[in-house]
């Protein structure tokens, strides 16, 4: 009995169907998948979705701090605390976070020129330097500007020409003006990546078992090639990871205003973790060694996701991690509504890493399968 020669696509689909049947009967995977999903959703909803916008303003010279303390900012919901500085450089350092004062960071600083009071009393034009912390939104910057003018009005008894030239406004650190994000929003990429990783470990375990028990040798004794096995495993892993991440994103309302960008980022992330699964699965001998090798790869890949939780903690080396591009694209699309143009660098990095790791993972698995 000789059937019609099966196409490569039908061989891949047949192997994928078999893999899905196996996974659907894997008790560990069946329990772990919904558990991780529920855990991620719970963590997300338990975290605060609002940001504490109490502002600590530094003022130079310190003698003017008292004048500002009674000032009510235009936005009544925004609290204000004023700290005086005797040195302009110390004020700038405090805004940057280096010279942090007791009670919290200084989010903005106002450096008044020498003879400021005399100038406004005599209605002479004057300039004020404003140091702004990276995460201060534009509406608060506007309030600061208004505050300075109001203070001048209070002191002089009439409007005075205080100028805050654009060149004088200094933004310190990475500019996240207008992009204030709650902890809940910051944790979203981490939750998505966590789900992707869980799915990748399930696939890695499946691959390790297939290679270890030599069932793969029986597959390649048919018209199926090693490449068909590798492609099928890669696609199965991607499909599983992507579908779980998609469920999570829908529940967490994480598709945002740029669903295509977010979905593309998640797809690349799914391919990336599937590639790691191929590597871990090919190298592992049993569930525990596969888990160990998988975690060895995946923990460093979680680091950029944690960096999103703590803005400012991202070091240069984190940008060289394979997952950085994926997480940057995911965060940019889901949280800030950035488009493909804005995230082209992140996507290029993610694509390059994914293609590279997939090629390496595929080769390693192919070699292991051929030698089984």
């Amino acid at each position: 009995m000789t059937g019609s020669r099966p196409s490569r696509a039908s061989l891949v689909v047949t192997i994928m169907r078999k893999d899905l049947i196996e996974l659907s009967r894997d008790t560990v995977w069946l329990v772990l998948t919904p558990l991780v999903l529920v855990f991620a959703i719970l963590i997300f909803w338990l975290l605060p979705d609002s940001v504490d916008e109490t502002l600590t303003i530094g003022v130079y010279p310190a003698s003017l701090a008292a004048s500002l303390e009674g000032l009510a900012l235009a936005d009544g919901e925004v609290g204000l605390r004023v700290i005086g500085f005797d040195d302009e450089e110390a004020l700038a350092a405090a805004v940057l976070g280096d010279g942090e004062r007791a009670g919290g960071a200084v989010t903005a600083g106002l450096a008044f020129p020498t003879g400021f009071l005399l100038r406004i009393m005599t209605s002479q034009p004057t300039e004020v330097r404003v140091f702004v912390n990276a995460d201060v939104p534009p509406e608060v910057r506007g309030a600061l500007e208004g505050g300075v003018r109001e203070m001048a009005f209070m002191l002089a008894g009439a409007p005075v020409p205080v100028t805050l030239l654009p060149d004088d406004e200094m933004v310190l650190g990475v500019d996240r003006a207008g992009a204030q994000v709650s902890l809940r929003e910051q944790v979203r990429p981490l939750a998505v990546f966590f789900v992707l990783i869980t799915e990748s470990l399930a696939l890695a375990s499946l691959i390790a078992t297939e290679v270890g028990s030599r069932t793969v040798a029986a597959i390649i004794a048919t018209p199926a090639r090693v490449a068909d096995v590798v492609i099928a495993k890669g696609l199965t892993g991607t499909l599983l990871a992507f579908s779980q991440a998609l469920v999570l994103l829908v529940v967490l309302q994480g598709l945002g205003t740029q669903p295509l960008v977010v979905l593309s980022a998640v797809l690349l992330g799914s391919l990336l973790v599937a590639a790691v699964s191929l590597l871990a699965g090919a190298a592992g001998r049993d569930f525990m060694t596969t888990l160990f090798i998988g975690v060895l790869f995946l923990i460093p890949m979680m680091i950029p996701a944690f960096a999103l939780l703590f803005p400012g903690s991202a070091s240069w080396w984190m940008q060289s991690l394979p997952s950085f591009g994926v997480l940057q694209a995911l965060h940019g699309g889901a949280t800030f509504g950035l488009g493909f143009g804005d995230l082209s660098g992140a996507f290029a990095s993610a694509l390059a890493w994914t293609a590279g790791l997939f090629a390496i993972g595929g080769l390693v698995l192919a070699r292991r399968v051929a030698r089984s």
Partner: protein
Amino acid sequence: MTVTAVSTTSQRKPAEAIVVDDVHFSYGKRPAVRGISFAVAPGEILGFLGPNGAGKSTTIKMLIGQYRPERGSIRVLGHDVVREREAVQSRLGVCFEEKNLYPTMSGVEHLRFFARLHGLREVDVDGLLGRVGLATRGRDRVAGYSKGMRQRLMIARALVNDPDVLVLDEPSDGLDPVSAQTIRGVIREQAEKGAAVILTTHDMWEADALSDRVAFINDGRIYAIDTPESLKLAHGKRSVRVRMRRNGEIEERVIEWSGESSAAALAEATSDGELVTVHTEEATLEAVFIEMTGRGLS
């Protein structure tokens, strides 16, 4: 050491289904197969005999296209196994030594999966399971199968594409005598349908009973390849065991059978007293193997 494969049946038809010609393979610097050549005709069963590490499995792996020979060529049904792998695989059935089955899948699911890999949509799965005695357990998951049941499912899997070439690595390993007999029947049926069968086994009795020819393999070389009968006649020692009652006592004597002088010795041994029993004893394949290679099979 120079080894020449011995063949005493020169009238055989030229084998065509499998042609292995001067094949070599090494694991790193350690040679595993050193210039093996043999052929198997359609409908013929060739038993591959040799101890562990003799090169049997490596030869099988090259035959099924898993390993690429370093030198020499292997043609299956006229196709080169390296260059025309797919053409070979679609007509090949393989039963591995390891029980490489999926524990969470049923027997039926296994056969359907492998049938699809061969491009077959409609396969008489129940009939196939019936042939190997698994008709009532086909819907059960393999995790619940005994060792023997798993082995029978592996045989059924090897037959799912009704192969023209059947490669069996220790096919009756782990089977009870009744199941082993069933499997031997299935193998014979496939050969009678025209399939070329090559099987490895440690079981001398099985090799003798099932194989049309056997090949002795040791240290990566084939020492002899012929029918079991010819090998035993050419290289084995036959004997006659005679038991006589003399003066109320049983006496036993073994006469090595080597021609007319042996007949005279037998006549002399039975001339005096009461003959109780006479048994002729043939050489076993294992004895022939030891005689030729200087080592046992286990």
